[in-house]
């Protein structure tokens, strides 16, 4: 079976989601190829090969990065038509979703989003209702079956291979260069990335406003190697930027400890954090759904518990 992987690449290399998906593709298919388009693509062939791609279709041309989705889909659709893969897996990212969606219009094939596993060439698994139900879905219709995989569904493991690089032509018709990325802006907060942090401290509606996030910042600083996240409610209210969001529409995290305050545990949030090794939830709502999945649920006032906890940790650190 030919399994292809859409690789999200930058000058810094392939994304972690790409390597996770590639690791799965390796188990699934006997011919595994990756498609990497944009600056950094050829350099990424190294790690892509190490994670299971035997072929990397690549172009470093900036056209794939300067214009949203359309040039990439033009090139990808050509490759798919020529090589006829059975399955094409995508990591779930902003750009990959657009590429998968547009490719579907070209191939007329099925597209399954939010998959957590791929069981075979025609069956994928997803979790719904906040991860309380596991659903297996049979995929039919023309190849390639398109499957978008949720982040952190698999662990990325190198297998030590190398990939042959095949140059992808970058002759893109002018009418596909309409949507142009003119500038990038970074808004990352200090400290570790949410996805990498050993501890995630997250806040929700119960914080009541942006000021209360300072309490979480202080707690995260006291713990060390901790990142601050938020529920959709807090992001939609404008208290913290979208890059903080944990959940269906935001990031998926699997830290050693997920410590949240003022989050009730809507289905959309649980999907993004229920894979944490340990969950501590502080909420004043004794009926909150988050308490059902917490290892330690604390019913009380976060404005007392969080500062007291920060103080306790600082005391421990200084040994006083």
């Amino acid at each position, binding site marked *: 079976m030919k399994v292809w992987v859409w690789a999200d690449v930058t000058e810094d290399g392939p994304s972690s989601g790409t390597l996770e998906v590639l690791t799965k593709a390796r188990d699934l298919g006997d011919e595994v190829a990756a498609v990497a388009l944009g600056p950094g693509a050829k350099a990424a062939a190294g790690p892509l090969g190490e994670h299971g791609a035997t072929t990397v279709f690549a172009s470093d041309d900036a056209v794939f990065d300067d214009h*949203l*989705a*359309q040039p990439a889909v033009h090139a990808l659709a050509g490759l798919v038509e020529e090589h006829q893969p059975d399955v094409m897996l995508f990591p779930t990212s*902003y750009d990959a*979703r657009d*590429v998968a*969606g*547009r490719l*579907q*219009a*070209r191939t*007329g*094939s*099925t*597209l399954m*989003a*939010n998959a957590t596993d791929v069981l075979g060439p025609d*069956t994928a698994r997803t979790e719904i*209702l906040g991860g309380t*139900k*596991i*659903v*297996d*879905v049979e995929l*039919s*219709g023309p190849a390639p079956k398109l499957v978008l995989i949720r982040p952190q569904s698999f662990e990325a493991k190198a297998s030590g291979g190398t990939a042959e690089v095949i140059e992808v032509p970058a002759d893109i018709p002018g*009418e596909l260069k*309409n*949507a*142009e*990325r*003119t*500038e990038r*802006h*970074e*808004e990352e907060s200090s400290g570790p990335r949410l996805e990498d942090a050993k*501890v995630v401290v997250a806040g929700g509606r119960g914080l009541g406003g942006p000021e209360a996030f300072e309490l979480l910042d202080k707690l995260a600083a006291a713990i060390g190697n901790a990142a601050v996240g938020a529920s959709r409610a807090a992001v*939609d*209210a*404008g208290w913290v*930027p*979208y890059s903080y969001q944990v959940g269906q529409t935001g*990031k998926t995290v699997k830290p*050693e*400890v997920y410590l949240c305050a003022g989050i009730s545990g809507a289905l*959309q949030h649980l999907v993004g954090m229920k894979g944490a090794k340990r969950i501590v939830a*502080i909420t004043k709502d*004794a009926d909150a759904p988050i308490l*059902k*999945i*917490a*290892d*330690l*649920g*604390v*019913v009380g006032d976060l404005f007392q*518990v969080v500062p007291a*906890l920060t103080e306790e*940790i600082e005391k*421990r650190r200084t040994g006083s």
Partner: protein
Amino acid sequence: MNVIVLTKWVPEPEGTPKLGDDGLLVREGADGALDPGDEYGLEAALQLVETVGEGEVTLISMGPEVAHAALQRGLAMGAHNGVRITDDALRGSDSLATARVLAKAIERQDFDLVIAGVESTDGYTGTVPATIAELLSLPSLTFARELHLSDDTLTIERQTATGYDDVVSPLPAVVTVTAGATEPRYPSLKGVMAAKSKPVETLSLADLGLSADDVQPTQKVVNVTDAPPKQGGETIEADDTTPARIVEVLVEAKVL
């Protein structure tokens, strides 16, 4: 400036959704509403048309008859007219069928811009707007958290994992708008009354020149199981010992 807003009726977003024997969400007889994720895009559309000073906002929705409630909400917020595609063959439609139907319905309109939410609150697929854009050979500007229009050029701030990108495109185009991008207005009493007399066209698949073969579902739920429940959790009332209890968890996890 004519803007089409794609709207979806979803089962009550705050309620607990139910699964039928076929593994599909039960929509019949369920309480439902306009997808809250669509209100941000609708608000953006209304603002654009108001700023330009001419043109209309048209809602297009695919769904069963109950979906009319979602259109009514959008019309009450200020949209000028609506199109609803209802057909028995569309039950359980997948993302490709949905995109084909909506693209056909869009084609019949005179429009400058198509706006949708980033993803629906019940399905979360998040690819339908991009598929529609490809079917219509239009650029897709996704994850817009801000939109600015100057002449025939649209500029958006596109949300990214670490910040945002500026993306510029000529019109027509398809844009998806993130939740929180705008502050959706509440319908006024006048708006609710006026909505009742605004035109809503009802179309079938045949009206769009499509057949049941064009919308054959390509996905079938073959197995549903309950995820294993969490074991050994404990809930306590906060007191003076709580900080020490949480520290214990952090120490066990070797992060302190």
